[in-house]
């Protein structure tokens, strides 16, 4: 089977996966106890008012009608109105999602670049002091809870050294607006970004480092590494072009999944640094029984996981010639 047929088949799989995913999401939300009105029950609310509110929200329709309406809206990119904010979900989420992407992508990129490099070197210099020390540092980073790392960074860099602002995304009263670059490229924003991104990077660092190290150890035992050394190639070439290049394959899959979950935002990091991202929004939406908002958040997060896996599969074809298109 050729590459083209493989891609086509993989795309069809993608569609089926998506359908299963959003249907499951619909069912899960309808199975949840309580309904949005439970948040509105105030002293003066009569049963009639409550019924009326439910009808407004379309929750009195039979399930299959709700489902069809739900699919129609998804296909048109319309996630409906938030029950709580009374604003279109799309506009609420778009901003939050972008904030999370900028934060998490920065954290992930640093974690994976540093993790892959250090993991590769740890495998290469096996049994050295560098490797032993590296494992300890990695495990400490891995075992430290995000909130604790966040608080330590805050104490040191904000309250003690005073180098960075303590919370939020930008200084209050600062100029807002302009394009993407103006919003996310300003020095003020980057200063706010640094500590939460560092916290995230520390949390994500362990996986690529340890995985890279262990696959390096496997790959370094392979005969071809010895042949490449016998060929007289310099160590640097053997390390990067051959050993690390082969070791990176499993990292691709892990990175794809990590990206997927990271895009859901980290409730802990966002709370510690008061970052207006997806994680916090999703939690409050669930607490408020705000179906459309919570569902859109879950939908977005799940979509990223599915799409990243799809990308990883395609990347594998390019990275590993041994992958069979079957």
């Amino acid at each position, binding site marked *: 089977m050729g590459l083209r047929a493989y891609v086509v088949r993989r795309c069809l799989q993608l569609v089926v996966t998506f359908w299963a995913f959003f249907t499951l999401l619909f069912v899960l939300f309808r199975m949840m106890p309580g309904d949005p009105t439970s948040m509105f029950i105030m002293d003066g609310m009569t049963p009639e008012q409550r019924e009326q509110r439910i009808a407004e929200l379309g929750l009195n329709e039979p399930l299959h009608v709700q489902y069809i309406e739900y699919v129609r809206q998804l296909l048109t990119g319309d996630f409906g109105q938030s029950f709580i904010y009374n604003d279109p979900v799309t506009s609420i989420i778009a901003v939050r999602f972008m904030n999370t992407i900028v934060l998490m992508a920065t954290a992930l990129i640093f974690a994976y670049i540093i993790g892959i490099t250090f993991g590769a070197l740890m495998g290469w210099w096996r*049994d050295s002091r560098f490797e032993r020390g590296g494992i300890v540092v990695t495990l400490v980073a891995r075992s430290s809870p995000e909130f604790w790392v966040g608080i330590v960074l805050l104490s040191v860099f904000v309250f003690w050294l005073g180098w960075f602002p303590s919370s939020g995304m930008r200084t209050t009263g600062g100029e807002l607006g302009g394009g993407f670059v103006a919003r996310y490229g300003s020095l003020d924003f980057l200063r706010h970004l640094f500590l939460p991104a560092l916290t995230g990077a520390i949390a994500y660092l362990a996986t690529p480092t340890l995985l890279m190290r262990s696959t390096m150890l496997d790959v370094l035992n*392979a*005969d*071809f590494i*010895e*042949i*490449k*050394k*016998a*060929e*007289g*190639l*310099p160590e640097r*070439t053997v390390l990067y072009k*051959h050993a690390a*290049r*082969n070791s990176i394959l499993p990292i691709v899959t892990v990175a794809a999944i990590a990206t997927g979950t990271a895009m859901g935002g980290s409730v802990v990091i966002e709370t510690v640094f008061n970052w207006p991202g997806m994680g916090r929004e999703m939690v409050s939406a669930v607490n408020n029984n705000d179906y459309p908002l919570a569902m859109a958040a879950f939908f977005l997060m799940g979509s990223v996981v599915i799409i990243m896996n799809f990308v990883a599969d395609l990347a594998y074809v390019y*990275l*590993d*010639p*041994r992958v069979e298109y079957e």
Partner: protein
Amino acid sequence: MTLLDIDGLKTYYGSDDGWVRATDDASLSIERGETVGLVGESGSGKTTLAKSIIRLLPDNAEIVDGSIEFDGTEITELSDRELRRQIRWSEISMIPQNAMNGFDPVYTVGDQIVEVIRHHEDDTSKAEARERGRELFDDLGIDPDRIDDYPHQFSGGMAQRAMIALALALSPSLVLADEPTTALDVVIQDRILETIKEMQEELNSAMIMITHDMSVVSETCDRIAVVYGGRIVELADAETIITNPRHPYTLGLRNAFPDISDDDQELISIPGTPPELVDPGEGCRFAPRCPFAEEECWEVTPQPESYGDGHQVECHRADEIEHLQAEAGKKETWREQDLGERKPVETADEQAAEAEVELDD
């Protein structure tokens, strides 16, 4: 003309129990264009001996003594950089046991041939290097267009041919072949060996063929070195090793391989296991397994004795060759149950105690 002269080479591995003497006082010289077989059991140190020549040793291994003179250059004194530039692959290349694993799976075979050519020859263009790879493929009986295939797309025999192409890409003067045909079936084995011989003659490369297979060495090698316990116990031309060996270990090895022309031949194996190489002490290393061991064998390490025509043997009893050869052909000579009783009790006290412990088991 001597191409390689190994003299008193000692390559030891560090371990928790002390030095493992994988190669202990080995001397061997090789002429240009000559093929020498290194024969011995797994763990006898034959691979360590060969890899010492290009210093392709694990981190815990060290060449502690001896010299390796290659074409006037003392290899043990080269810096890593000089070794990579002047010796590795351009002068000495190798063919691994399993060619399929000898190629990096994520690059095409052609890319890997081009990589090594261009690394050693600064002014060869990519196209020229590729063309040379294609010619080598053609010479070795592989379709030149397959140079753009990945290693996993090759069959075992073809991968081995491609590996030979890689090994010969820089026309080295010496090729180290580490059991190059063990992973292949017999018919292909034969063809590969022929191909190696043809190419080797064309380039006038010398070769060290490492194997535990007597039939492979007898077919391809000019001379054979029998390795036991890190030492070269017998060295002679192939004919002599096959028909007129003097070392009991060689006699035993010969028994263990079938002779197709002799229907009645009974295969006899050598009882016991290869020796511990941590601090082996004085005495012949083969003595514990040797049916002919005498008191002297346990106490004095035999030194190489010459028996004419470059035939060297490390054995105290090599003079009694008729007797040894006659006895070695009998199955009862190599009985396993005799092993424990062979060690003379009147040696050092410590050894006597050890022997008692063995008997108690």
